[in-house]
């Protein structure tokens, strides 16, 4: 029987019944049951008792709010009276609607869960590790993706019957989807991760991408709208009383024009960029890395695209909205194991979860294309294959510096993975020279030409773990898998 913590849990009648009376990994269970958001791993902030979820650095978000509110406020206060009487009252009305839309979508983007995937329970992780350790019937390739030693951020590609492209990430101990990514700012794994937007104070991922897009689109319209009408206002006034007098009469107009002028380029550019991304169904990450770019090779196309622009747009903007998977406001059930790393020594990274700062700079880049490319190389090689996707770019290093300073923890060789560990360790450390393979631009990405150069995407290594007997079928299977995936 579970004591007191029932609360507003979902209506599912089954809870794990544990015969162990006290779980040491539980948060201290006092009289008041704690909600799940209070012990949520990762660098997030929660407000309103778990209803609102944001990133840690919210300073820029407040700046955004202030800019928008102040500029719009000045517009309504100083320019609208003149415009309403001299042109049409529709001007403030439309402005009002746009402003309402902008604020609504901004708040929605900032406060919603981008699609964070909760971490696995210890039982799950143990089960998966057992499965992986048991090589019978499983084909496993290790792709070591951007893991600076000794973090051992292995991604196991798990192929059971050819075409599965799944990754088991040892750090968060879950079987990951091909398009998910860990956000360095919040050390959460988010599905269809796009980027971390500091202006919005949150990651942009599967669940809030449409809000983000509507936000920048409506903000573009609002900016252009305000800009145009303020100019009109000043021009009309200066017809009547001269330019300088006009400026004296409405000083706020100058401020508005300046703010709008400088914002309009980046915002409109960003809208255009994201329109392009949506119509080709890519994420910002994928675009930055050029995952699906035709420059990379002939077998390069985006398996996620639906083929035509219209469908891509509809899918991104009007598709079904998946629910939040992390149940922030649920109560912690005392007998339900919380997703903490198992203490039995299986984990490679030991205390990653407790030392959440270690997750910050860790970016496991996963893209199906990457896998395809790696898998396309002959599978039967015995030496590691290094595929350098891009030369290290002179990107913004502001993200790199905090990363460099953080201690990376003990090298914990994965001793519980007999087949895998030694292989992983064999991969020479020289491959992780770059150290920081950050995915997310520090700031909101501008149009492609101006993108802060990204990501020295790492190397992939295809290793074989099996007896040669199975390698032929392996090869065949993988090729079939490739073909199958290519036909998506």
């Amino acid at each position, binding site marked *: 029987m579970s004591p007191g913590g029932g609360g507003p849990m979902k209506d599912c*009648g089954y809870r794990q019944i544990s015969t162990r009376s006290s779980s040491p990994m539980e948060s201290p269970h006092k009289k008041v049951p704690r909600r799940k958001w209070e012990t949520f791993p990762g660098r997030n902030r929660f407000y309103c008792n778990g209803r609102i979820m944001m990133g840690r650095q919210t300073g820029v978000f407040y700046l955004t709010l202030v800019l928008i509110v102040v500029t719009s406020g000045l517009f309504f206060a100083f320019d609208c009276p003149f415009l309403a009487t001299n042109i049409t009252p529709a001007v403030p009305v439309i402005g009002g609607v746009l402003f309402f839309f902008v604020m609504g979508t901004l708040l929605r983007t900032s406060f919603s869960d981008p699609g964070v995937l909760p971490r696995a329970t210890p039982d799950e992780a143990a089960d998966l590790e057992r499965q992986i350790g048991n090589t019978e019937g499983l084909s496993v390739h290790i792709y070591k993706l951007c893991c600076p030693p000794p973090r051992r951020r292995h991604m196991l590609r798990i192929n059971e019957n050819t075409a599965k492209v799944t990754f088991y990430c040892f750090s968060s101990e879950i079987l990951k989807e091909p398009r998910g990514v860990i956000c360095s700012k919040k050390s959460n794994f988010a599905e269809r991760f796009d980027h971390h937007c500091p202006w919005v104070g949150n990651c942009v991922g599967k669940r809030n991408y449409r809000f983000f897009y509507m936000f920048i689109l409506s903000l573009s319209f609002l900016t252009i709208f305000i800009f145009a009408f303020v100019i009109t206002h000043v021009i009309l006034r200066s017809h009547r009383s001269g330019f300088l007098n006009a400026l004296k009469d409405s000083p706020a107009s100058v401020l508005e024009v300046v703010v709008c002028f400088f914002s309009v380029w980046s915002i409109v550019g960003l809208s255009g960029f994201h329109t392009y991304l949506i119509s080709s169904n890519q994420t910002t990450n994928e675009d930055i890395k050029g995952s699906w770019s035709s420059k990379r090779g002939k077998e390069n196309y985006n398996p996620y695209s639906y083929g035509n622009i219209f469908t891509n747009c509809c899918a991104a903007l009007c598709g079904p909205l998946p629910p939040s998977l992390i149940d922030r406001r649920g109560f912690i059930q005392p007998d339900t194991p919380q997703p903490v790393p198992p203490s039995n020594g299986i984990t490679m990274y030991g205390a990653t979860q407790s030392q959440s700062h270690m997750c910050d700079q860790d970016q496991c880049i996963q893209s199906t294309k990457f896998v395809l490319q790696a898998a396309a190389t002959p599978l039967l090689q015995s030496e590691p294959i290094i595929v350098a996707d891009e030369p290290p770019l002179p990107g913004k290093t502001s993200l790199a510096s905090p990363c460099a300073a953080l201690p990376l923890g003990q090298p914990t060789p994965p001793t519980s993975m007999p087949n895998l560990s030694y292989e992983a360790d064999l991969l020479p450390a020289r491959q992780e020279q770059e150290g920081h393979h950050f995915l997310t631009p520090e700031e909101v990405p501008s149009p492609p030409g101006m993108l802060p150069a990204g990501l020295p995407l790492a190397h992939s290594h295809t290793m074989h773990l099996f007896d040669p007997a199975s390698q032929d079928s392996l090869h065949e299977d993988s090729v079939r898998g490739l073909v199958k995936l290519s036909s998506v």
Partner: protein
Amino acid sequence: MAETHSLQDMRQQAAIAAKVFIQRDYTNGTLCQFQTKFPTELENRIDKQQFEETVRTLNNLYAEAEKLGGQSYLEGCLACLTAYTIFLCIETHYEKVLKKIAKYIQEQNDKIYAPRGLLLTDPIERGLRVVEITIYEDRSTGAGR
């Protein structure tokens, strides 16, 4: 006597013997689908057919939730026009299907799994990563504690 347990009995007294995790199946992309491979631990507990039927129905339900069709487009457009404030009032199609799934799982548990000492956990409680099946000890054979 067959080894039937009622759900109440299980909750109150049973000990967990093992847990089986049905992982996601990514062969068709990132849609939420689960593998239909029959786990060996369940061999002496339940029919393979029945298990596959359950998982297949779950897969169909998730496919329905994520389907791109007229209804989801309509919902999306309407929501967009109202600056997404409409979601404060009505629940999304996905959430409706999730409720259907929860009901289905409960029904399956009541009718099929609990009498065999098994318990399905709704995947949403595991972040849609796995379908967790808890195997309870079979007291009629006197195994375990």
